[in-house]
């Protein structure tokens, strides 16, 4: 990996991938819901191959997410899927389940292995454990703060990836909770039923509100992996990106999940400029307030741009 911090993005389609390469992305995480969780869009095996063909000549890397919680029934497909990805020339596999790690190690040790257990990658010793088992990178849990992230980087040889922009998952159930709720309402008060069924996919715009938090809207959707609840705010670390760059974080991720291409393009461009400006003169780098404006102009007014947990202390 180059010494320069990578700007990692998601893509919902080949078209978006191409536009985000042009906007300055260095790498992408893509995949399909059959194997990965909460992906910006669906990429078939053929589309993954096309993505690699588009990205490689421009020095852009493609990572494929296989980070589902995997059940027995899906195990037999794994080796074939990974063979296909390796043949397509992808650079790394993103995993959470040890079954994926073992399969990749057995058949394609040349592939990068990015450990992404989302909420549970919370300390450097555990990251290093996965490193000794073959992981080349780990993705830091979004609930850590800056001090913890910097300390993790100081205590590991692995590449460290940190999400710097976008929404995050805050709850994942295997249950179909929206469908269950709709079924319940149908049974208890058929007269009040709104016409048509509750449509529960990620593009439907459903959200939860809690009585004491009327300002916050938590997106909720169902797919074949169950029910997902997402954060009510979008992380935006553009202003303090240099803190992560100074710490030597290897990869900064913009998650474009549930965002439009024009939004993602704007965000990627802003982060690209900040990273390039930093590397042009690390000592003299100063954040340019104006860089936020294009993002703010496109930001959903119901979703706050926040620092996530970067500057928070949590209790337990």
């Amino acid at each position: 990996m180059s010494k320069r911090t990578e700007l990692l993005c998601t893509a919902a389609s080949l078209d978006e991938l191409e536009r985000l390469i042009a906007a300055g992305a260095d790498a992408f995480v893509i995949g399909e819901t059959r194997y990965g969780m909460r992906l910006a869009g669906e990429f078939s095996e053929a589309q993954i191959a096309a993505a690699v063909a588009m990205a490689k000549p421009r020095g852009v890397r493609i990572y494929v997410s296989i980070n589902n919680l995997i059940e027995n029934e899906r195990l037999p497909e794994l080796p074939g899927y990974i063979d296909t990805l390796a043949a397509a020339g992808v650079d790394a596999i993103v995993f959470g389940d040890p079954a994926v790690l073992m399969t990749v190690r057995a058949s394609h040790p040349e592939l990068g292995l990015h450990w992404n257990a989302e909420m549970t990658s919370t300390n450097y010793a555990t990251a290093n454990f996965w490193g000794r088992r073959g992981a080349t990178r780990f993705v830091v849990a979004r609930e850590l703060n800056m001090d913890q992230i910097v300390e993790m980087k100081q205590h590991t040889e692995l590449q460290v990836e940190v999400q710097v922009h976008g929404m995050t998952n805050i709850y994942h159930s295997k249950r179909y909770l929206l469908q269950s709720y709709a079924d319940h309402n149908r049974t208890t008060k058929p007269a009040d039923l709104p016409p048509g069924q509750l449509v529960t996919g990620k593009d439907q715009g459903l959200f939860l509100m809690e009585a004491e938090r009327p300002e916050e809207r938590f997106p909720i959707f169902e797919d074949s992996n169950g029910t997902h609840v997402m954060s009510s705010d979008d992380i935006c670390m553009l202003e303090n990106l240099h803190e992560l760059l100074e710490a030597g974080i290897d990869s900064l991720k913009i998650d474009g999940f549930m965002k439009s291409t024009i939004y993602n393009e704007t965000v990627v461009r802003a982060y690209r400029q900040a990273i390039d400006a930093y590397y042009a003169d690390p000592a003299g780098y100063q954040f340019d307030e104006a860089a936020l404006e294009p993002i703010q102009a496109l930001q959903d007014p119901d979703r706050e741009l926040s620092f996530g947990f970067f500057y928070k202390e949590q209790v337990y």
Partner: protein
Amino acid sequence: MATEVLPRLKGKRHRLERPELLAPAGNLEKLKYAVHYGADAVYIGGQKYGLRSNADNFTFDEMREGVEFAARYGAKVFVATNIYAHNEDIEGLEDYLRELEAAGIAAIIAADPLIVETAMRVSPKLEVHLSTQQSTLNWQAVQFWKNEGLPRVVLGRETSLEQIAEIKANVDIEIEAFIHGAMCSSFSGRCVLSNHFTDRDSNRGGCCQSCRWKYDLHVPEQGAVDEEDLFTMGSKDLCMIEHMPALIESGVDSFKIEGRMKSLHYVATVVNAYRQAIDTYFENPDSYELNPAWVEEINKAANRPLNTGFFFDTPGAEDHIYEAEDKAAPYDFAGVVMDYDPATGWATIQQRNHFKPGQEIEFFGPEGFFKQIVGELTDDQGEPLNAARHPLQLVRLRTEHPVRPMDMMRKRINK
């Protein structure tokens, strides 16, 4: 909720060893009762590294006493060290694990590989059981942990009986599964609702159960779907008492009851019922029949409506709690038997809740159950009382059948 029992897996019973009954114990008294009522092992929390930061939790001295007590019954004590650790939790872990080992703890239940690896290195006599917090669902992942040297995996609560049998068929390792109690409706460890709502870290014991709060579900341009029965992620509680043959025959090695925060009465009642069901099965699997009394007993301790989780199918509308919750059972814990005089038929009871003459009460223990009405009531000096008012007060009353120390007394309450 699926009600039919699975056909015998693969057409035959492939396992007839008695599974371990593993019970929660929030404090030393609960540990003693859990063991006395038939738990083969109990799991507890220490002062650190556990996911119930609000529970009483054990000091090392209490652990030693608990281990000694359990050993008299041939039972083991496990400690939950099931947090996902942060950097600052690394320091002190080695000493903590050595202390657990020295206290005679048989196993830790760990999710974080940091804790798994450290325990294997510094406290080799402690078994390491992989926690359900890892949400392990497939046999290759189980194989991975076996290769790491773990003798046992607690599966994710999303695994079905068929999947469990398949895991057992592929990997020679002990499998532990939750069979009773409250459930995370999320994949365990994959929920940070508490972090987002209250800045309390759910994976280090700070969970504030936001999944059980009520939410408005909004559809764009339509508003809230239903303003009466609000949306919730809260699940009914797990209960497998009606399906013991299927559970035993799936090959699960350890049957785990949830509830380190639950009452003494709850632990004793639930352990008692499952103990009887397991023992009845092993007396003669072919003639095993569900005893309705076990179900009744469990219902007397239930906090929420019950269901069978993912064992038979994916939970649906009937498995979640949308309406206001009833206080489930019309019974309250009233006292414990301290002593009994067979010559007079009088028992000494330690009061755990108000009761008085004329009230219907039930006595139960590992060896029996009966109902009666409270008759004459005195204090421990024989002075008549018109009610047992004071917590932990010693009182006497005549019981209609012999009782034993550690038998429990509950009262019927009017709803």
